[in-house]
């Protein structure tokens, strides 16, 4: 897989080709136009936005990084001229922007300013470049090596192993609720379900159609495993998003969790946690569920787009600033460990091992389908009832399907 190759060959490529061409190629001589970036908020994106703003310091440049970026990016790009000239998106959220036709094909800009961007960073849809990816992300096991050593268990490779280890940790009286997870009802919970369902080997839709098909043995298996895990979680798990779960980890309350690669850096640095916690925090590989052997995780890329409804000068300015911010010039001692960067010159750090292992395990990319967002929302609204024991797994799956079908009919995907 491409990412894995880059991680291993990255250094060599950088040495062979030299990074100077790219870094100097964008001398950031932006004199015209306007740059305004909207995106999610985590360290890697903050670094990218800061570099882009520094590059575009000659013109009107702003960035709005927030966890609520998905709620505002479409509205902020629909106007003419669009408020945001660039949205930092992932493979799920780009779909909504493409559905509404608010992002610009980048082929002409790539030809003019982006000759140095390696092809694996270009996201092409039907032959047109729609985004430039700069990092890979995935969820994978994060574990406390000291706690596992205390109970004499190996590092789990499957969710069944996680349950076993959790039971041992609880029985040994080390932690009451040793398992963590971003199970907050809504987007996070649905994401865990998507991962688990991919792990069982199930398909979300009947091939080639928008007809959902998750009410099957795979769906039940995925939900049952999620429920089994919640027995070892803090009882408030339905209110814990990735941020709250990370805090639980740093507080030393959790020993095993499935967490985003982009957040492991924060867990392993010496801020916010005691030494016993951060120094024993290790990024493991992806987990499997059942006997399918598939990684119960999905692969993500984060990348940037350029808005459609802006002047050519602004589009050029935005493209140059973002291309510079995601070029090898970004990489230094501080930023290197923030993500699995896709740029040449990236050297894998210990915190990145989880994501690289997930890529190597052949996990599927998160489905980039125009109707996947509707299924994600429907799942986020309907799984909590099952986890709380109010209804059966089959009923929860039927509810998800029914909620999705109503929404997809409204959106014109189903008749």
């Amino acid at each position, binding site marked *: *897989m*491409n*990412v894995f190759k880059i991680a291993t060959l990255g250094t060599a490529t950088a040495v062979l080709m030299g990074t100077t061409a790219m870094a100097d190629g964008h001398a950031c001589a932006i004199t015209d136009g306007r740059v305004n970036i909207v995106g999610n908020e985590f360290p890697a994106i903050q670094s990218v936005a800061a570099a882009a703003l520094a590059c575009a310091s000659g013109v009107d440049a702003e960035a709005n990084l927030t966890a609520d970026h*998905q709620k505002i990016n*479409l509205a902020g790009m629909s106007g003419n001229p669009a408020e945001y000239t660039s949205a930092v998106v992932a*493979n*799920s*959220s780009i*779909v*909504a922007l*493409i*559905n509404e*036709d608010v992002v610009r094909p980048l082929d002409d800009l790539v030809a003019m300013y982006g000759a140095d961007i390696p092809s*694996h*960073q*270009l*996201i*092409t*849809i*039907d*032959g047109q470049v729609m985004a430039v*990816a700069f990092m*890979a992300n995935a969820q994978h096991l994060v574990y406390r090596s000291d706690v596992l050593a205390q109970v004499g268990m190996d590092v789990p490779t499957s969710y069944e192993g996680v349950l076993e280890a959790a039971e041992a940790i609880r029985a040994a009286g080390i932690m009451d609720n040793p398992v963590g997870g971003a199970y*907050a*009802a*809504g987007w996070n919970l649905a994401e865990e379900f998507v991962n688990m369902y991919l792990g069982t080997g199930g398909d979300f839709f009947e091939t*080639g159609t*928008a007809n959902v098909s998750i009410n099957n043995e795979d769906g039940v298996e995925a939900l049952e495993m999620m429920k089994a895990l919640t027995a070892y979680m803090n*009882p*408030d798990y*339905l*209110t814990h*998003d990735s941020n709250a779960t990370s805090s639980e980890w740093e507080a030393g309350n959790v020993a095993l969790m499935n967490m985003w690669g982009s957040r492991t850096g924060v867990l392993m640095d010496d801020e916010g946690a005691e030494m016993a916690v951060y120094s024993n925090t290790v990024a493991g590989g992806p987990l499997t569920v059942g006997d399918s052997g598939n990684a119960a995780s999905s*692969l993500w*890329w984060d990348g940037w787009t350029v808005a459609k409804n802006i002047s050519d000068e602004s589009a050029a300015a935005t493209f140059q600033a973002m291309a510079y911010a995601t070029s090898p010039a970004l990489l230094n001692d501080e930023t290197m460990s923030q993500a699995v960067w*896709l740029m040449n010159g990236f050297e894998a750090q210990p915190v990145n091992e989880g994501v690289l292992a997930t*890529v190597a395990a052949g996990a599927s*990319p998160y*489905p*980039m389908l*125009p109707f*996947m*967002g*509707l299924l*994600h*929302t429907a799942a986020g*609204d309907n799984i*909590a*009832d099952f986890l709380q024991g109010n209804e059966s797994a089959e*009923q929860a799956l039927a*509810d998800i399907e029914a*909620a999705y079908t*109503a*929404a997809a*009919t*409204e*959106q*014109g*995907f189903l*008749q």
Partner: protein
Amino acid sequence: MKHSTFFWFVLPSAFLMLLFIALPVASVVTQSMYTAHEQVLVTVENCGPFGCKPVTSIDQEATKALNADKPLGKWAGLDIYKDRNHLAFSEVGSAWVNADGLPDFGKTLMNLPFYKAMAFTLTYTFIVTPLTIIFGFFIAVAVNSVAKALKGPTIFLTLLPFIVTPLVGSLIIFWMVDARGILGTGLQWLANNPDLSVKASTPLMWIMLMFYGIWHAAPFAFVVFYAGLQTVNSESLEAAMIDGANRWERIRYVVIPHLFPLVTFVALIQLMDNFRVFEPIVSFSAQAHATSLSYAIFNDLGGETRLLSSAAATSVLTIIGIAILLSPVLIRTYRDFSKPS
């Protein structure tokens, strides 16, 4: 007043009401009756850092042509109102036929998002509104009898919950009732149950949301009643005292009848406010336990794919709900005013 004078006098406000109230409502109603066009899907090659893959995508050219032809979308009439995510007529109908007794029917109903949201919204409205009025009234009576020098600071402190932004106020309580927060730990100690967690239990979550609602709104009722108390005729109170009425009897027979028009006013405002309960659900991350119509609208608009028509339909249902809720109070007010005096 001459007709033309009256006309020119109300014209500006009538125009503004038309512009800012009637037009948006009309636009929402229109939106709720249209859905997106049938999407033209094509299979395209999609390449990225994880390799190439054929995926389904929307044919932008074809969609653009459809949209240019009919920019509002496809006429759907009341289909969205009837679908499973709203009134769910067919689901309710089949549940009614197939249900094994009323409790089973209720359970099926509570599994449908609209009815689940209504169950919480109505419970919230009918518990929080009267309690807000009762608490507000007693706070007003209590503050009214505080020594003059202390009145200013007391009123200010009492108003604080109303001044704090709802999102912030509920976030503060959210962390206080956390299993490791001061209130959460206190509750565990009181209940003698170290595993007690407000955030994990639906009934406790409902109680907490309602507690928050009362805490936040009682100062509003208080300030209205307090103003009303200043206008109570002191002669009537003294007369009642001479007749031997004790403090409670004076409140019951003199003060409360005097304040009753204000109760109607507070009830109207609170019914409207409580029916569209929203902020605490977001702040308490309570959507797994309680949802409301306003939350459903937020959810429709906040997903990766915005469901505009669905949100519009829920908005219209909210307006209808508030109209039904307010009608008894409004009818009563109308009768009071048209009574020949």
